[in-house]
């Protein structure tokens, strides 16, 4: 490996593994106006340094969804965007709308805290003349142990469809387990799990009877749709494999998003295992 490539890898790795480094995407959605440009929305997404940002803008005739990822390199950062766009190009003979879909990738390198301007609808006459653009500032700061993503979004013009989401693949997840039978629920049992780690043994007690299970956390299978894969829609989904302690065959797998509703798995004993996935607390 060439010395420059080696140093690049070291720099990237050191940036990724830096203690408690937190990445922030600060954005403003701006629309050109007669006198001064008008801010339609503003917000920020933050998370660990490998956090991505998903941005969605919709108008009556166009729709842009983009997933932005950053790669730090010393005092600079490369931002790459995977764009998935749909444009209304007309109507069919039966009067139904015809949409043109396009997928492409854009990337630029810039110093930290500089402003990048994203033209989601292009820089042609149409894009520059009347369509909104997005101003993006990337910042990094030190925040010890906080791994959960955060989103803040202020939609100034509520008639516009603009969305901003943090996309973070959890390195750990807090799983809260209950056994349920009829109207009786066991005491909740919380456990911090890391995806693809060796299985752990847990015991839940319901009506004085103990049930022992082997659980492990896994990542879900890749999304079937190419669009969902490109936009990392299942980034915050984790799956819990549940099995008996004395057999290799699992009883089942429960998949769910973090901070979402409880998922349930019927057990051969007649009980139902209920699992809730959540972001872990700071370490």
């Amino acid at each position: 490996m060439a010395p420059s490539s080696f140093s690049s890898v070291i720099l990237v790795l050191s940036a990724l593994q830096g203690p408690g480094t937190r990445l922030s995407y600060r954005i403003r959605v701006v629309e050109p106006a007669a006198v001064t440009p008008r801010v339609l929305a503003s917000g920020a997404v933050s998370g660990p340094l490998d956090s991505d940002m998903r941005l969605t803008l919709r108008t009556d005739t166009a729709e842009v969804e983009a997933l932005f990822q950053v790669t730090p390199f010393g005092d600079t950062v490369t931002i790459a965007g995977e764009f998935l766009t749909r444009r209304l190009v007309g109507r069919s003979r039966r009067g139904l709308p015809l949409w043109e879909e396009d997928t492409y990738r854009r990337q630029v390198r810039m110093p930290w805290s500089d402003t990048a301007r994203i033209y989601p609808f292009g820089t042609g006459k149409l894009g520059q003349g009347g369509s909104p653009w997005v101003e993006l500032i990337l910042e990094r700061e030190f925040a010890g142990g906080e791994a959960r993503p955060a989103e803040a979004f202020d939609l100034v013009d509520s008639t516009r469809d603009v969305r901003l989401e943090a996309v973070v693949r959890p390195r750990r997840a807090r799983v809260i387990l209950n056994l349920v039978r009829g109207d009786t629920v066991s005491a909740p049992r919380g456990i911090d799990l890391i995806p693809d780690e060796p299985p752990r043994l847990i015991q839940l007690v319901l009506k004085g009877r103990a049930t022992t299970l082997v659980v492990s956390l896994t990542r879900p299978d890749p999304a079937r749709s190419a669009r969902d894969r490109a936009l990392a829609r299942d980034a915050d989904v984790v799956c819990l494999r549940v099995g008996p302690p004395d057999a290799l065959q699992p009883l089942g797998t429960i998949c769910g998003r973090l901070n979402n509703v409880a998922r349930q798995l019927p057990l051969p004993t007649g009980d139902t295992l209920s699992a809730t996935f959540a972001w872990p607390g700071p370490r």
Partner: protein
Amino acid sequence: MAGADNTHEQWLAQIDAELDGELSLVERAALAKHLATCGHCAGARASQLEVRVALARSAGNPHAFVVPRPAIRAGTLALWVAVALAAGLVGGWVANHRWGGPGGGAPLEETRGTIVVQ
């Protein structure tokens, strides 16, 4: 048809066909050229014309004094219709390829998003 070996009878048949409006432009031109040099044929044509006008007037045709316009033959008409249709189809295909169809308009790159560092 208007070759050097045309007999007098053939020219008379051509005159008959011309008055029926059945000759093409080229055939009519050849006949006119021949009539300019052949007084016998020119006389025969005038006689034919007078007979036709007299017959038409006796049949009560108010437009009998008008020399009938040469009618377009079915084969010629079909040929020109086919040529016009083909030209229309080719023109439409080229225009659709160049300007028409869903998704036309600005070049693709101009409609795609870009990131610009300020």
